[in-house]
């Protein structure tokens, strides 16, 4: 271990330290002394972002810890996204934490730990590290989901998420073990080389007494392993047929946590999904693209159709997040540099608009999340015009109306898919996004075209929440009008990620 290795994981170290400080403060301070916690959490996130920025340009960095971690532009992109998501969630949950009397220290500490795990996921280049990062972020989120301890739905979500999550992780782990068995390596680059040479990595050691161990890679074992890895990642990104937990968990979790899961965790899962499949398993692409094809299509169809019937906004957004995972899988199916860039751009755009939407839901939900049904939103446009206007912007962006980030997200995705000759998938995707418009518009219709049935109190928007709303709205428009900077970043990161695999174009 060298100093440079430590600098590579400096962001994670800062987050861990900040998390521990917050947790200890929470433990030793009196109740209601939670004002410091968000500040420390934000400071930690800022410091971590600074540590990422400090290492710019990311292009020339060597792998750290013997190739286990790779701080390339790809991982920097995701790090920045995670920090942004976490910061927005911290800001938007300050009201919520106070109102629900949650243990503020633990809450913020867990958020930081989860963010740290996600950061590790994004930069790990080794199946062991991927597993560790995944576990760190998952364990923290299991607890966060059940953070409203006195509420039965919250505990129930937490249990469902925990049991199914560790079940899926077990599948993933089994896949990792089999991959290790087939190739003799856990490092993604080595796996790639082994699969390409169709020889396990033992040859690389070139040591005479190991010669009898040299052997071909058993293809059936690799296939089995890919399937199991796919199960694990598809579960985390909530793609069909492993989306089943999503609605229940998103509905029962505290709303800011739902926002975090649907944006941050999903992005982290896609980051490892991309890295494992595009770097290590790129050689078997002709097999696994079909899994992606079918899974992407089913996710879009199932997510959109089931969302049509929901009356609970959180549950509706949960189904919509399944559908959005489907759109992202469409770009993934293209398995090209352009596709990877489209996935990254979409994740960024989706994160911003979805956090905004959940922030509105969280604010409007009031104490105990009483007002999360569609009908509660009736007439909101007149009682809280700004809140309703920002919700409208986020929903329009989720539909993919031009001038919003969601439009370019979809645009890049379908462009990448078309360039990869996925004509049918593109057409079906466009059709799906047309269906999706219906249920998002329903919320807008409720807000603007229905008289309020009962008087629902709308609390004043506090500055922190106001900042989140304005920031997400501005960012949504920014991505819809000047998408270039983010897209360039994503394209470069994608190019860099794939450049070691030969000519960069698969």
């Amino acid at each position, binding site marked *: 271990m060298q100093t440079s290795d430590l600098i590579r994981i400096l962001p994670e170290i800062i987050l861990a330290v900040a998390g521990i400080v917050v947790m200890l403060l929470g433990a030793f301070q009196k109740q209601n002394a939670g004002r410091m916690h968000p500040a420390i959490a934000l400071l930690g996130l800022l410091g971590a972002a600074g540590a990422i920025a400090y290492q710019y340009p990311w292009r020339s960095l060597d792998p750290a810890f013997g190739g286990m971690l790779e701080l390339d532009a790809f991982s920097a992109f995701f790090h920045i996204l995670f920090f942004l998501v976490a910061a927005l969630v911290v800001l938007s949950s300050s009201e919520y934490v106070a109102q629900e009397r949650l243990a503020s220290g633990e809450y913020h500490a867990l958020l930081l730990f989860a963010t740290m795990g996600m950061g590790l996921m994004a930069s790990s280049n080794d*199946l*062991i590290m991927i*597993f*560790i990062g995944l*576990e760190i972020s998952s*364990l923290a989120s*299991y*607890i966060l989901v*059940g953070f409203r*301890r*006195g*509420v*039965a*739905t919250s*505990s*129930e*979500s*937490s*249990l*469902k998420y*925990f*049991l199914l999550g*560790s*079940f899926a992780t*077990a*599948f993933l*782990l*089994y896949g*990792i*073990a*089999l991959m*290790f*068995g087939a190739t*003799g*390596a*856990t490092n993604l680059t080595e796996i790639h080389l082994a699969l390409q040479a169709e020889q*396990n*990595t*033992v040859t690389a050691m070139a040591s005479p007494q*190991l010669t009898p*161990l040299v052997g071909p890679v058993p293809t059936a074992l690799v296939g089995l392993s890919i399937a199991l890895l796919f199960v694990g990642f598809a579960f985390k990104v909530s793609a069909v047929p492993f989306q089943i937990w999503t*609605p*229940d968990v998103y*509905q*029962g979790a505290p709303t800011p946590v739902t926002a975090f899961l649907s944006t941050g965790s999903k992005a982290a899962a896609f980051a490892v999904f991309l890295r494992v499949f595009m770097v290590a398993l790129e050689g078997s692409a002709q097999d696994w693209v079909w899994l992606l094809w079918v899974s992407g299509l089913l996710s879009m169809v199932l997510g959109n159709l089931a969302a049509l*019937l929901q009356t609970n906004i959180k*549950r509706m957004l949960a189904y919509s997040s399944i559908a959005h995972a489907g759109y992202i899988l469409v770009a993934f199916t293209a398995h090209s540099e352009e596709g990877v860039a489209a996935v990254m751009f979409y994740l960024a755009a989706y994160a911003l608009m979805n956090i905004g939407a959940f922030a509105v839901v969280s604010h409007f939900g009031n104490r105990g999340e009483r007002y999360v049904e569609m009908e509660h939103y009736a007439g909101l446009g007149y009682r809280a015009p700004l809140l309703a206007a920002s919700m409208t912007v986020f929903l329009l962006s989720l539909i993919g109306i031009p001038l919003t980030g969601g439009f370019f997200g979809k645009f890049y995705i379908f462009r990448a898919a078309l360039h990869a000759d996925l004509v049918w998938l593109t057409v079906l995707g466009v059709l799906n996004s047309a269906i999706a418009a219906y249920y998002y518009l329903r919320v807008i219709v409720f807000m603007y075209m229905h008289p309020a049935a009962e008087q629902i109190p709308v609390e004043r928007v506090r500055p922190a929440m106001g900042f989140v709303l304005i920031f997400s709205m501005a960012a949504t428009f920014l991505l819809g009008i000047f998408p270039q900077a983010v897209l360039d970043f994503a394209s470069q990161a994608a190019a860099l990620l794939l450049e070691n695999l030969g000519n960069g174009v698969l």
Partner: protein
Amino acid sequence: MPPVTPVHYLFLSMALFTIGVIGVLTRRNVIIILISIELIFNAVNINLVAFSSQFASISGQTFAIFVIVAAAAEAAVGLGIIIALFRNKETVNADEIDLMKW
């Protein structure tokens, strides 16, 4: 006695894995479900250690230790969640935990 080859380990681990999966699917007590998941983790560990010795590579065993640590953490978190749920609902029967559906 014939020598024990990696294939033997592979079958042992697969058997353990299958037992774990069936346990998750058939048992109603959430604690037993949790234990079944732990069984799958142990199936993974058998695999890792077996392959590690096959390739004379240390990384499989290291990985196994990490898995054990993670499994322990998971058990702790899981039991905590189960206790929280039990306080709210007074049950550990998986079939009675369905407040949210559709």
